[in-house]
């Protein structure tokens, strides 16, 4: 208890609180700008943290990251430019809601859902951190392979526009993911001698092109596309009622997010896709998904933020960072004499509690900042669509340029944007393509690694207990689906036979 009181004094002083506020505002801006990511926000902050005391330094990273990721939903909702791979899972719903005049509700669900998910993650972590870390450490390439395959299957099976088109979209994404240097042997693939393609097709320009540019092309010529917004005075009106209606989704999303999020490298990106599919599968109105329905948004949004909190666990307990952001944070922790490891919880518990408190404060800060952002954001809809499109196009170009500071990113964005425009016209969903690009390398790498370990024995994929469970689950999902569609194909004939 002493440690907790000490932690309170470490956090509740003017310096730390000011740092948290400033970093949060900074994160909000970076996250809300399309193409600029939480990773970028964190990397930019690192030189500043050299001059800070340990706790404010960590606080700066945590506050800016949490805020940037939540703010990444803003351009997704308003302009159909998702900020993170995870928010691409539900961007279709949040954007369509905004187009129906419910931008405030969509942003509110995002913000308040995030706060609740984040706080849930916090409570969850307080009790389970060491056990959760141990659980995550048991995962090898075998388990990751099945997890990624399961994620891909979800996307294909629930895709709007049918399984065949969803599957084709997914394959296109996997093909795009193949471009670049083979991750294990270094052999160039599909690069056609273009040196810039050896780095692969970056995910951010692809996402900006396929979602935002395609939308600009679709709406480009219409000068007046009025989208009157409801609840202008109080953008968050009705949010709590909506969250209460879908409380089951909120809780399930948070729990699954906390579990999957703890898996280094896979968790954060994958979790929201899994729960979005789950929400659609169990929904009473699955046909509304992808057309501006809040149910999937509630569940996947909660997942997103719960996963964000738990992704810190393997990094803090075992020094295994799951993504660039936590990797940078681990660097800052070490530099400030708080080396990751189990001793972080035992020898200096006040530091650990202080870090946790910063999470809580950053999450609560999201409410007022998110509210202000939502109120000002609605003005976007007062701009004629054609003019807005010009600005979006500019953001698309800047965002895709900024990833590697090359025009090549812009070329990728333009090419994939045009492809996505025609695909959407023919009823193909875009989300599975994005998931293919994100998960393709994971499936491939973990499969190759596993095959090298087992000397090419495919049955080795079922030898480890967790891996076997995941593998059987994946096969079961597909068998049920195939069985179901075979039954559907044959039933009408039987009926026809009976009537004869």
């Amino acid at each position, binding site marked *: 208890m002493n440690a907790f009181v000490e932690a309170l004094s470490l956090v509740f002083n003017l310096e730390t609180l000011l740092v948290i506020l400033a970093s949060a505002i900074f994160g909000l801006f970076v996250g809300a700008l399309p193409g600029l990511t939480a990773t970028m926000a*964190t*990397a930019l902050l690192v*030189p500043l943290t050299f001059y800070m005391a340990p706790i404010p330094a960590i606080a700066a990273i945590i506050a800016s990251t949490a805020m940037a990721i939540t703010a990444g939903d803003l351009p997704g909702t308003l302009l159909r430019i998702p900020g993170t791979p995870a928010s691409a899972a539900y961007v279709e719903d949040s954007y369509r809601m905004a187009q129906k005049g419910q931008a405030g509700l969509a942003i509110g669900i995002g913000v308040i859902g995030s706060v609740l998910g984040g706080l849930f993650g916090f409570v969850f972590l307080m009790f389970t951190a060491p056990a959760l870390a141990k659980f995550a*450490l048991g995962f090898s390439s075998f388990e990751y392979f099945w997890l990624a395959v399961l994620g891909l299957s979800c996307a294909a099976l629930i895709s709007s526009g049918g399984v065949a088109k969803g599957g084709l979209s997914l394959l296109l994404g996997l093909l795009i993911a193949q471009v670049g240097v083979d991750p294990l042997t*270094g052999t160039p693939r599909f690069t056609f001698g273009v*040196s810039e393609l050896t780095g692969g097709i970056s995910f951010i320009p692809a996402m900006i092109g396929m979602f935002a540019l395609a939308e600009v092309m679709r709406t480009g010529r219409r000068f007046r596309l009025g989208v009157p917004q409801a609840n202008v005075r109080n953008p968050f009106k009705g949010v709590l009622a909506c969250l209460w209606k879908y409380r089951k989704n909120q809780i399930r999303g948070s729990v699954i997010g906390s579990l999957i999020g703890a898996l280094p490298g896979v968790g954060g990106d994958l979790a929201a896709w899994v729960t979005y599919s789950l929400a659609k599968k169990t929904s009473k109105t699955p046909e509304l998904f992808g057309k501006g329905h809040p149910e999937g948004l509630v569940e996947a949004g909660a997942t997103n933020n719960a996963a964000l909190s738990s992704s810190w666990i393997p990094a803090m307990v075992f020094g295994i960072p799951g993504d660039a952001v936590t*990797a940078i944070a681990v*660097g800052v922790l070490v530099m*400030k004499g708080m080396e990751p490891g189990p001793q972080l919880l035992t020898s200096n518990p006040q530091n650990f509690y202080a870090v946790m408190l910063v999470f809580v404060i950053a999450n609560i800060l999201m409410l007022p900042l998110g509210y202000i952002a939502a109120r000002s954001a609605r003005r976007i809809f007062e701009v004629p669509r054609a003019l807005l499109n010009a600005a979006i196009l500019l953001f698309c170009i800047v965002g895709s340029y900024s990833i590697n500071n090359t025009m090549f990113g812009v070329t990728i964005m333009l090419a994939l944007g045009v492809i996505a425009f025609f695909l959407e016209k023919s009823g193909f969903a875009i989300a599975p393509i994005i998931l293919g690009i994100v998960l393709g390398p994971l499936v491939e790498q973990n499969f190759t690694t596993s095959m090298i370990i087992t000397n090419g024995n495919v049955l080795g994929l079922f030898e480890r207990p967790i891996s076997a469970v995941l593998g059987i689950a994946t096969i079961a999902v597909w068998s049920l689906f195939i069985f179901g569609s075979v039954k559907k194909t044959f039933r009408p004939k039987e009926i026809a036979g009976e009537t004869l």
Partner: protein
Amino acid sequence: MSFFKKAALAACAIVALSGQALAEYPERAITLIIPWAAGGGTDASGRIIATLLEEKLGQPITIVNRTGGGGIVGHQELKTQTPDGYTIGVITTELSMYKSVGSSDLTYTDFTPIGLYNADPSAIFVRADSPYKTIDDLIAAIKKDPSAIKASGANFGGNNHIAWISLVQLLGAPADKVFWVPTDGATVSLQLLASNAIGVAISQFPEAKALVDAGEIRPLAYLGNERNPKQPDVPPISEAAGIEFAVSGWRGIGAPKGLPEDVQKKLASTLEEVVTSDQFKTFMDGRNFGVIWKGGADFEAYLKQRDEAFGAAIKTAGIKAN
């Protein structure tokens, strides 16, 4: 515009231009290319160097993470820049290997070496419950059959892979029989080790420290010739096996080939101040990175030696990119 106005403008322009030529380097912002992603060790050390250099040179330094192709993209980018001192870059271990492995023609001779600031030997790790209790157990096992030991530590042909091959080679075992599981990075390999999918991991110490502290894995030996004062219980391989070991990771600052000598001298002397400063030492110490300084010609000689040592190990093992 009258003739006189034109002449006056021309005169101004000439003065401005000649002034530019005479002014001392640097007089505008410098770009620092980092060939690895934001958040890694190269990025972190590159950023602190940029911050400290900025203070001393009095010009802003913009950092560009040009990633991909196992560092090839970033190194290639640096090579093709104008050698005027306004684009410099972090160059890393991989540069000692590209040519021998055949993944790229890039070598240290494509760059003007400015200074070496870090070198870290890797270490050998096993699971806490591994049958290899000491480094001697492992050495015996390697001598018996290296193909029976599943080892990992980042990519095929990477620094840790070469170190493992070099070790097997120096112990007199058949290095072409090595069982290497390539991964995306040392932390992934450590996760494979902790989840009991492989038998041995080769990694630099800082990346593995938390897992060691947690009692999940154990270090057996350093792949270097000196004991690390911070880990006095971990023997260097030279002591344990009686071999000289020259394969280790390094990081330095370089510029495109053909950098004017005065600019090179200015950068090298400023970088030396930075690398030997207490601030830098504290930072590197905090991250468990070893600090070492070798400027200009010394750095070039060091790179030449690495080129040969890495080349020998790579050649014997027959590692080739297609």
